[in-house]
């Protein structure tokens, strides 16, 4: 099937098998390998991208379902060579260790940033319910997200 969509603001057209998962399309056809695969039951969130502004698990969608949509992946969050305030906060707060879960968590956090400018600890933890990190214990992730939200709110 032929699909056309925007990925990180660039137009993309492709011929895909109907069963091709969006995550495989992004990783293997477009070589956007920052979106990871951590499970096969839609539970880890490592594959999270934005589809028309909503955080979705790209392992749970077919590439054809993204036809006509706007997809943002971790690579599209900030101009090449720069860090989005969220990404910078992750580094400052040591919110990643192996970094495998990180792109998915950053994409979820980015969704939160858009919705709630001052989320509290419990809200942030609840927002991360669909993500699993095995390395960090989450505390520094929560702190990083809270700090990024503050900065974005203050416009710094």
């Amino acid at each position, binding site marked *: 099937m032929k699909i056309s969509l925007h990925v990180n603001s660039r137009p993309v057209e492709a011929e895909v*098998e109907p069963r091709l998962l969006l995550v495989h399309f992004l990783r293997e056809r477009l070589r956007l390998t920052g979106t990871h695969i951590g499970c*096969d039951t839609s539970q880890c969130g490592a594959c999270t991208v934005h589809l028309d502004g909503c955080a979705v698990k790209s392992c749970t969608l077919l590439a054809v379902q993204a036809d006509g949509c706007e997809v943002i992946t971790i690579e599209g969050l900030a101009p090449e060579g720069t860090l989005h305030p969220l990404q910078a906060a992750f580094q400052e707060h*040591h919110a990643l260790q192996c*970094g*495998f879960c990180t792109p998915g968590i950053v994409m979820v956090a980015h969704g939160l940033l858009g919705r709630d400018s001052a989320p509290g600890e419990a809200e942030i933890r609840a927002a991360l319910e669909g993500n699993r990190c095995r390395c960090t214990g*989450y505390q*520094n992730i929560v702190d990083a997200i809270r700090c990024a939200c503050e900065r974005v709110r203050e416009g710094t």
Partner: protein
Amino acid sequence: MSAGPPAAPVGARLPRLEDPRLVSGRGCFVDDLQLPGMLHLDILRSPHAHARIHAIDAAAARALPGVAAVYTGTGLAQFLRVLPSAGGMEGFNAPEHHALAIERVRFVGEGVAAVLATDRYVARDARELIRVSYEVLPAVADPEAALAPDAPLLHEALGTNRAFEMRIGSDVREALERAAHVVRGRFVNQRIVPNTMETRGAVAHFEPWDERLTVWLSTQAPHLMRREFARFLAFPEHRLRVIAPDVGGAFGAKNNPYAEELLAAALALKHRAPVKWIEERQEHMLVTSHARAQTVELHAGVREDGTLLALHYRLVADMGAYYHAITHIGPMMTAALMTGAYRIPYAATDIVSVFTNTTPTDPYRGFGRAEAAYFIERTMDLIARELGLDAVELRRRNLIRRDEFPFATPTGHVHESGDFQLCLERALERFDYEGARREQARLRATGRCIGIGLTTHAWRAGFPSVPGGKGYVISGWEKTSVSIDPGGTVRAVIGTSPHGQGIVTTTAQIVAGELRIAPRDVRIIHGDTDAVTQGNGTMGSRSLVVGGSATLLAARQLRDKAVRLAAHLLRVPAERVTLEAGVFSDCGDPARRVTLAAVAAHAFAGPQDLPEGLEPGLEATAFFEAPNFTSCFGTHACVVEVEPQTGEVRILRYVAVDDIGRAINPMIVEGQLHGGLAQGIGQALMEEASYDAAGQPLAASFLDYATPRATDLPRFEVELTETPSTVNPLGARGIGEAGTVAAPPAVVNAVLDALAPLGVRHLDMPLTPHKVWRAIREADA
């Protein structure tokens, strides 16, 4: 903090140099590699715990367009060796283990057939077309049951399900008879799954023109893998290159030369095409090493005053269906550390290791030491309760005192140094133990079910080499080379293989500290056996204590040479040369100066103008091996609340005080503690790889195996003490495993403290709501 020059790199909370790439999706993990003409490997796995394979029909799979080949165990045996394992140990029963099962499968998930295809979807289609006819055999998943005389036999050639038996420790019988009290118990440290967020994977590629095989592996020990792959493939080691790219967590589970990765390499050689294998999560649950799976029956002899006299364990260790790389070490390590932080004059463990129809076990963060800490810390609480003593008071009476180090235990471990009381007293103060007990009493009176638990744990990191070691040998040394190019680039080539521990940053801090430069100006090379010729890898909390020490020594040697060169250039004696911010100067005349970069350039450019006896170049290599394990210790204390109506456990407060010896980057150290605590709490409350009696796994995906999520965990209050270690030049102690060592007993002790008034004496992990609720109901009845 003073303004002016940047703070000393060592001890700074420096943001990690690793992060910008990873946080922006520019990391490179194994599955991110794509080579032209690459074939995808997929494995068909046994649905039975124990069965004879009668026939495998792969005709339909082979006929599928895009399928390059289908292999079975018998087919592979014609050109492949058996898998490497602990088999070489003397007195051990060692079953043969093949990359794919031959004639018989012995656990659910064991590989039965392998498909190679041009695309991962096609490989999967083909896998589903393979028909296997099995004769199902009786299976045994419980290690105690596997010891029964009439139990189904896994390996007929061995004639027994016993893997090995061993006694470690002193004679205890007489001391136990003498003791005023003998406390008995049985504790299970349940089987769990490492669940790295990146599953395992490999890409193997053979280049015919120079006959070189390159294997990109999600591993924590590329050099060990190079050795084991060469052995397995009968391929010259010097033509083999192993690369650990970014690795998404390992926790001990990526230290085994697994069937699938070896097969990918073997088939890349055979087919002269790149081969990729990526583990699925459900496969990870079935075939990546499981962990823990130890049970002890204990007898603790206690004197009238509450001091321990003797401790005996009968330890049953579940090996799974086969050995993985160092499966057998787990129970030995548990036995060696069975006395924990305490002075117990007589102690022994009788180990019985057993094969069962389950996934093989192997290291997982805290290997052997987490089990030991769990058993002894639970034992301490049990004793306290039976003797009517406060848990803290009992520990105070038994802790090894700071003037008693080095302290040799009856089970052959030497605590090299320490200050166990320091951590205990710091933690009690921070936690406000007395206040917490008062608050508990107050809340209990209002009907709330509150518990307080603590541990005064002691474990060990940075293993030394075992002389004459047999089987799968991991040496204790580590190596670092530090160099400065003529162009001024500072490089450290390290033999450890970090994958989340922040060792790139920490190493840069150590080198920068010695050379008085900025950490970001140090390039760290690791993980590629062509660039790093020797090393042992990242495991057992050794990367800093051993690897970091090698780095320190190499950097010092390099600096010494640079100082001599600088002195020569400044025409002053070396004693007069100081180094600050990358510039050497004459302390008598600070205006006379030369930069480190200029010194480096001179080391290469001016061989005819070098001080007497000095070679050209600026490079130093150091190997470091510690004379003993580094002692690690701390005190954790937590408060939990149990909801009696639902059995739910909530951690209200968690305080961790651990001794780090010397913190190079406290932020990273705290992160290591957080992560370990999360995994330890996961084991305490929710994780279990259980099997039914027929050997069917009951938790084989994230649907039924719970790892902690953000909402499951409390905020951690972490504090570090610094009592220098005596067995490495950094004075550092390991921290990577502290959380998994300490959190399970701390949390379980707290929950059982909460349940004590209800009459619950002991519960085995995980303390799931259902288990807790049932215990409350039963105690009530």
